[in-house]
């Protein structure tokens, strides 16, 4: 059975010793993220996030379906994560690892159940037709921090996505293609982002955004998801050594600062992208006028 190779003894000892001296392997501060990069695709709703050597691509797609009978006024929103051998030969197709299960569960709680997306706005005709939105999370390169990176990618892609417009006449709905009418952005209520803290030394030492080697050495992790207004969506701690309540409160403050920074970063990238697209639109309009 392919398995993730365990870290060697001297690496483990070295990382722990270095942390005691206050040094991280790559020279970062304890509460620093790795360099974050975010690129949008040519199409709407494709976000490519690089967090250090970790890389995640999220793609949003939309379909029209009948809504589930118990929720007539809602649309459908689904986040799908599947690891592929691309990120590590230890990932096998159709055989989810623990990490994969935790990732999909956290994303579900953080984004879907915190109502980041207004699913009611996806309803076209109550009980008959609604949009089904789907976020495919592709892990392309894996060097730890998958949860944080995936969360950033999903939120960025959602904000970037535009759904086609519809005309409703009585019981009849017509979906207009992007060429007929400009597609419209999704209605997003708030932007939850996750910050994962790895802890060492019986919960006396916390690291933000651990890489794969640091993740393998840690005693446990705490995942905090909140939006930039400091509203906490979830706090998760999967086993490991106990942690002082006061520490947990401190972590929330650190997380808030990080979430604010990343939100700002995403917004800035969205603005840049919008400007780029708009420039193209303006140019196209001008040339059309000349042709006349």
């Amino acid at each position, binding site marked *: 059975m392919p398995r993730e190779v365990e870290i060697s003894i001297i690496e483990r000892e070295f990382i722990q010793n270095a942390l005691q001296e206050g040094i991280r392997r790559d020279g970062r501060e304890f509460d620093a993220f790795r360099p974050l990069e975010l690129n949008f695709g040519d199409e709407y709703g494709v976000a490519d996030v690089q967090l250090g*050597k970790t*890389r995640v*691509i999220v*793609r949003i797609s939309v379909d029209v379906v009948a809504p589930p009978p118990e929720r007539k006024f809602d649309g459908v929103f689904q986040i799908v994560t599947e690891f592929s051998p691309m990120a*590590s030969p230890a990932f096998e197709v159709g055989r989810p690892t623990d990490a994969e299960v935790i990732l999909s569960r956290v994303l579900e709680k953080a984004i879907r159940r915190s109502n980041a997306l207004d699913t009611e706005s996806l309803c076209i005709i109550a009980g008959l037709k609604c949009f089904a939105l789907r976020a495919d999370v*592709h892990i392309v390169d894996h060097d730890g921090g998958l949860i944080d990176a995936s969360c950033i990618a999903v939120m960025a892609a959602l904000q970037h996505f535009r759904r086609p417009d519809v005309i409703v006449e009585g019981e009849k709905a017509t979906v207009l293609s992007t060429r007929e009418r400009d597609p419209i952005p999704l209605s997003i209520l708030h932007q939850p982002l996750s910050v994962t803290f790895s802890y060492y030394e019986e919960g006396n030492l916390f690291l933000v955004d651990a890489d794969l080697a640091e993740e393998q050495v840690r005693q446990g992790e705490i995942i905090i998801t909140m939006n930039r207004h400091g509203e906490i969506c979830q706090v998760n701690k999967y086993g490991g050594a106990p942690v002082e309540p006061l520490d947990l409160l401190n972590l929330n403050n650190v997380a808030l600062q990080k979430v604010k920074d990343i939100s700002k970063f995403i917004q800035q990238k969205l603005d840049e992208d919008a400007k780029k697209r708009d420039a193209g639109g303006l140019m196209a309009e001008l040339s059309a006028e000349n042709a006349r």
Partner: protein
Amino acid sequence: MHPTTQLSPLHRADGSATYTSNGYTIIGAVNGPIEVQRRDELPTEATLEVNVRPAVGVGSPRERHLETLLHGALRSVVLTESLPRSLVQITLQVSGMPSEEGDCGVSSSLSILPHLLHTALLALLSASIPLSTILTAALVVIPSSSSTPLVSPTANQLLRAKPIRSAHVFAFSGDGSLLMNESDGVFSLQEWDEAVEATEEVCCKEEGGVGLSEGMEVDGREGGSLDTWLREVVRGKVNWEMRWKTAR
């Protein structure tokens, strides 16, 4: 227009490539030779595993079909007998498709096939897996309105050429022999011959070819064959790897 590509963009995989052409974006990764599971082990050759992952949703029969086609073509390229009892794992992640894909009248498994083949080859080259030869492939369609075949059409061209009578994908090895063919639609033997010829022109190197002795590159790179393009990509990789020898 030649595809744009980047070799070894990923850190974890042994070899990888990103590939963009005609609106398709694909990321390919190769791991190998690695340990093979008992049930897949072959005593005298390497096991090839091909995974195709669609941009949207999880794999469907379409992807399984593509995997079978790719497996067949790549098996004749990889020198599997030089790596017995091991696994070469090829993963192809489609991350972008032209938006007109669904309604251009050609089966989508045909139109994406040459791009998947190229990505797989590039990733194999990046992983330094021993190969007996290289391969180049192209899509060619014959519209109902005319008998001149269209070679590697863009999705837009396909839309305009509709309806389409037949579509073919041909893959050629480095020395110009036909490796693989998938055809769909109604066509005569003569049309098929023409299609092969037209694709060969795009894929293979010119007669009297640029062999090893080529010191000077062909200037009109846009006009060059896919073979020339591939050589150019590898030249870029080699120069990148050797740059420390000339660096200040």
